[in-house]
């Protein structure tokens, strides 16, 4: 409980910083910090597997991808800042509110947290994931494959003169 009280304000601060920072790189690094702190939060709650996966996937892959895309697309102007547009608040809220609503509805359905976290061995977790939830895994796999093919199509250089 103490770790939750200490960590969650830090996560919130880092996330807010990621939104408010004027320079894109600072925002990206703070986002990475927020994701890493989230992983620590999972670890503190005793969910070792999900915590380490969160770290490997979000800090190791997602944050690095964001940073890398910043590196590639960065303009020569180093002091480029993100313009703040009040109008952007509307689509932003439109995206955020449904997610928040779904989260709250799900949270209300989950039984109140007990002190003792249910121990779930990794093997059991894998079995559940690949039997009960196999359709979801397959759907995500298909989606990711489609995204990959799409990305490859976009990235392919079109040289009209080349055979």
């Amino acid at each position, binding site marked *: 409980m103490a770790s939750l009280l200490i960590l969650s304000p830090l996560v919130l601060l880092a996330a807010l910083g990621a939104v408010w920072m004027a320079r894109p790189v600072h925002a990206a*690094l703070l986002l990475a910090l927020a994701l890493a702190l989230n992983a620590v939060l999972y670890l503190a709650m005793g969910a070792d*597997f999900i915590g*380490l996966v969160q770290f*490997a996937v979000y800090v*190791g*892959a997602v944050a*690095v991808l964001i940073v*890398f895309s910043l*590196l590639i697309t960065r303009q020569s102007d180093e002091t480029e800042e993100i313009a703040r547009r009040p109008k952007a608040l509307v689509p932003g809220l439109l995206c955020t509110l449904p997610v928040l609503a779904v989260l709250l509805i799900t949270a209300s359905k989950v039984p109140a947290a007990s002190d003792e976290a249910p121990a779930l061995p990794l*093997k059991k977790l894998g079995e559940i994931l690949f039997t009960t939830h196999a359709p979801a895994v397959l759907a995500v796999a298909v989606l990711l494959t489609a995204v990959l093919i799409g990305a490859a199509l976009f990235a392919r250089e079109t040289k009209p003169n080349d055979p």
Partner: protein
Amino acid sequence: MSKDNIPLWSPEHLPLLPQRLVEMILANLGAPEWLVSISGFMVAASTVLAVFMTAFALLSLIERKTLARAQNRIGPNRAGWFGILQPVADGIKMLTKEDIVPARAVKLLHLLAPILIVLPAILALGVIPYGREWTPVPLELGLLFFFAVGSMTELSVFMAGWASGSKFPMLGAMRAISQMVSYELPLIITALGVVMVSGTLSLPEIVQQQGGGFWHWNVCTPWGIVAGLLFYVCTIAEANRCPFDLPEGESEIVAGHMTEYSGFKYALFFMGEYLGLFAIAGLFVTLFLGGWQAPLPGLGLVPTWLWFFGKLALVIFSYLWIRATFPRLRIDQLMRFAWLCMIPMALLTLPAAAIWHYMGRGPLSWMVVLPLVLVPWVLVAVIFNKRLAPATRTYRFADG
């Protein structure tokens, strides 16, 4: 493991001695339980650090000596006999140098980057089983922890490159990140094969299953030799060593992301690099070369951690040998090799490992699995050599 019936001074338990002593002394002084366990952990961590810091110092000398021998030179021989005091001299030089921060640098990130590069390497060293009794932190999810922590390195490299506010570090960081991302894929996929066959993510358990002679090591299985080779190549790339050392290729971009660092921060980068090298080579030994297992049964008298460090030394020496032998790749060759050769081959080891897992060890599974990995291997090699290799260069004036 009960602590009372183990002989304190046996060679097998020698690396645990400092931890045991501190715990015993504290317990006898009547310290509370948590203090004893925390102190024990800290002493265990310090033992690992002390071992690898010494190894780092020695390796920096041995590397220079080996390279010198390979290039028909003598190498460092002024500081102490055989240059043995050279690491000390280097350390003093690094510590007394001026710490320069470029005017255009982002101060905080510039300071944080070298620290965050050493940190994951040290953390990763903590989960490797060095001996039968000597695993500093025997995590159940050890392998996952290793990769999760290791993935932090890319962000630190980016921070170093970006925060320096200069061109060479930026280019070096871009090269380093693209290389690490590309080679991390086959690295993890080949490690997955081991996980599939062992059925566990715990590194001590993986080593335990490779006991009983070298033919039980993962590298001595048809899928294991392919996965092991791929993993080995990836470890070189992950450690940014020659022939994959473009992120810091001296002749091209000064020192890559470390260009704007001096003094002890620069030394920290080196330390992170070498500790990371030890960690990833140690993981290779653990996953494929049987970890601390003796190569032949009946060698029980030799403490197991000696076997581990012997294998580690061999692997590290092979890195030095490769560095002395191969020229540096170009960035497009490097990326093409990763995406068109390494990753398909790594993916192929997965079904091979699965079949091996279900058929069990035996001549029949050899006959099934070996062609499964060998045929595509040869095919990919042929295709890679023929269709994808750069066109033959023609020299207008030199050919004739």
